[in-house]
């Protein structure tokens, strides 16, 4: 195989798709020169990711390309069409537009465009990969056949080995005196952080006033994020910290200190925070939506997909007050981590690439 390039729509650090591409680049570089390309590049990645608009002599447009499909973009779509080399689609899932219909119809249309563009792409790809069984089924529903599940390369080992930021450790020691619930999710409608805030409100009002909640996640949609902050303020949550996007050292410290990870998402293509929590042996409470049951694979306390704040609060209460349950869930989390071994994921990527290119 000659060098293989990768293309993402938007590259920013701590973005799951970008991280997956950068992790894959490590193994692809062993095969040949491999570039990560993007339409939009955040400045902190300017040295590692090239913009597709820039003419660069290092980019060979006849080289095979892995396109990480995650949202619609006309320019990316035409770039993919312009490349002359074989094309492999790695599908990370496109959030169904319905989650944005009320709140931001324009963004919903962008998501719908992404789905249409992927549907049209099916006859141009040499191979179609999906990062989960759920995503594979989604891609097949768009008309693709022979979709292979090629798992994400998630380096939880690196997160685990990071030295915890001193400031975070100090803050957690001084301020977080009760049990800590951690939520790692971007503030977007389908992540249902609103449900977590409500559940936490019920928990501290009726059962466990000393509980703390930290919500970590990029505020990718400024206006929606403002809504969520306003909701939290109006609920007058005493020990709730909407931390926004944090450095990996801080995140590691939070995973290390937390007593439970809660995921209320209505839609996930994989849900990387679940795997990160597994690396820390953290008990998990989640709602059974989209790929979440598949990623959990029996670990975690899995509530039904439509579980409301009362049941979520009850589940959090059970985990935070029952040491045996917490230990059991923690053990299951640790056991499940083996399924996400990054070396296995890298091997799966190479094997599948070799068979389609």
């Amino acid at each position, binding site marked *: 195989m000659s060098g293989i390039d990768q293309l993402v729509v938007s590259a920013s650090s701590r973005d799951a798709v970008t991280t997956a591409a950068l992790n894959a680049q490590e193994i692809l570089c062993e095969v040949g020169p491999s570039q990560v390309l993007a339409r939009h590049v955040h400045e902190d990645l300017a040295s590692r990711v090239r913009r597709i608009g820039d003419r660069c002599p290092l980019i060979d447009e006849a080289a095979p390309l892995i396109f990480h499909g995650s949202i619609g973009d006309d320019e990316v779509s035409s770039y993919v069409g312009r490349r002359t080399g074989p094309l492999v689609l790695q599908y990370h899932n496109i959030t169904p537009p319905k989650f944005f219909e009320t*709140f931001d119809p324009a963004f919903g249309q962008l998501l719908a465009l992404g789905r249409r563009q992927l549907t049209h792409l099916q006859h141009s790809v040499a191979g179609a990969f999906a990062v989960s069984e759920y995503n594979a089924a989604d891609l097949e529903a768009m008309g693709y056949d022979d979709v292979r599940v090629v798992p994400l390369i998630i380096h939880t080992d690196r997160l685990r080995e990071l030295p915890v930021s001193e400031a975070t450790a100090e803050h957690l020691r001084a301020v977080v005196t009760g049990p800590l619930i951690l939520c790692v999710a971007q503030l977007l409608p389908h992540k249902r952080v609103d449900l977590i805030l409500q559940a936490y409100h019920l928990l501290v009002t009726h059962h466990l006033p000393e509980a703390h909640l930290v919500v970590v996640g990029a505020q990718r949609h400024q206006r929606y994020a403002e809504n969520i902050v306003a909701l939290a303020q109006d609920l007058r949550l005493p020990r709730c910290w909407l931390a926004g996007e944090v450095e990996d050292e801080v995140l590691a410290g939070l995973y290390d200190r937390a007593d439970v990870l809660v995921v209320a998402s209505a839609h996930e293509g994989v849900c990387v925070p679940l795997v990160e929590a597994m690396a820390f042996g953290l008990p998990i409470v989640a709602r059974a939506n989209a790929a979440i049951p598949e990623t959990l694979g029996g670990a975690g306390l899995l509530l039904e997909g439509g579980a409301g*704040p*009362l049941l979520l609060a009850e*589940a959090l209460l059970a985990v935070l007050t029952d040491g045996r349950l917490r230990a059991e869930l923690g053990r299951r989390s640790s056991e499940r981590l083996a399924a996400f071994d990054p070396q296995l994921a890298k091997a799966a990527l190479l094997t599948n690439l070799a068979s389609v290119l």
Partner: protein
Amino acid sequence: MQLVEDLKRSVEARRRAGLYPQGLEDQLDEHARQFAGHRVAQRDPIPHLRAAIEEVAQKRDIHRKVIAPTSSVPLGSLVHRTAERLQRRHLEDLATQMEAFAATVTGALRLALEVLERPQQDSQMLLEQLDAVLERIRALEAGAPLGGPLGSMIERVERLEAAERQRHFDPFFSNERFEAAFRGSQEALRVGYADLADRLTDHPPVIEIGCGQGALLELLAERSTPAKGVELDGELARLCQSKGLPVEERDGLDYLQVQVDGSVGAIVLLQVIEHLSHQQVADLFLLAHQKLRPGGLLAIETVNPQSLYVYARAFFLDPTHSTPVHPSYLEFLAREAGFSGHSIDWRNPVQRDEVLTSDTEDARRLNDLIFGPQDYLFLGVR
């Protein structure tokens, strides 16, 4: 999972014990929706602008005493007063100009505020209307009944659709099988219609609406009379086509509609008119008059409603029969549509062994009423 079931039971127990107030989930839903379910209210800059303009307005009067007369220096106060006296006129004039300028600026700013406020009020009203529409859509999606004129229209359409479904008849058997069972063999039909075919040879081209299995068309072909069949039933149309007959699968009235006015020699409907609606029968006469050339024939054979025997033995055999059509009504239609003449041939008399045989006046009258001819052929002349 057992644990999840236990958790649900625990939630229920707390609810029953009154720990969670009635309607708590709805309240939480509504509360979250207020914040997260709608678009964010934009920060309104208008009040700040209004306050700033008012501040400008308050400071509009220029303070004229620019030099305080008091002084700790000997003769300082005198110097100040003198200086003020010397500058007063200039200062007064300057201050007046500045006040006039400030008044103009304040007025302009107020006007600008008014202009700015108007579209904002409009857009706010539009947003409120949009929210109301979204609210309504959500309620409808949740199954709320749709009121108003649209609701009653939908109800009407649903009633019509239900009625149409009841009227719809799409049996498992074919028309060919049905005709074979009840209308007699093709050979019998050929014998029965031979005289009509002879008559039509003088009126080419012939259009037969509802040609069935094509018995008449065959007879016309044998007589080298140009003819065309139109059949709504696809299966029958294909059967005719397989015999080499010129038959098109379509609605007969539609087919007539596209013919050139005054170009058709004869229009024939055999055992068809009783399947049509009242409106279609009336339309047929007007259309036939328009399309037939002068002297052209409109030939309609149908069951004879003046014979009670027909009701006992024939009419209700076919579930697609709509209404029997009285010969006098066809005569009326022909006159009204402008046909120059018409005649009636009584056809298919009841077999002799079925009629009353006694040779009395009563028996004769009863035979006329009960055992009259089963069909009649109406012939209208354009």
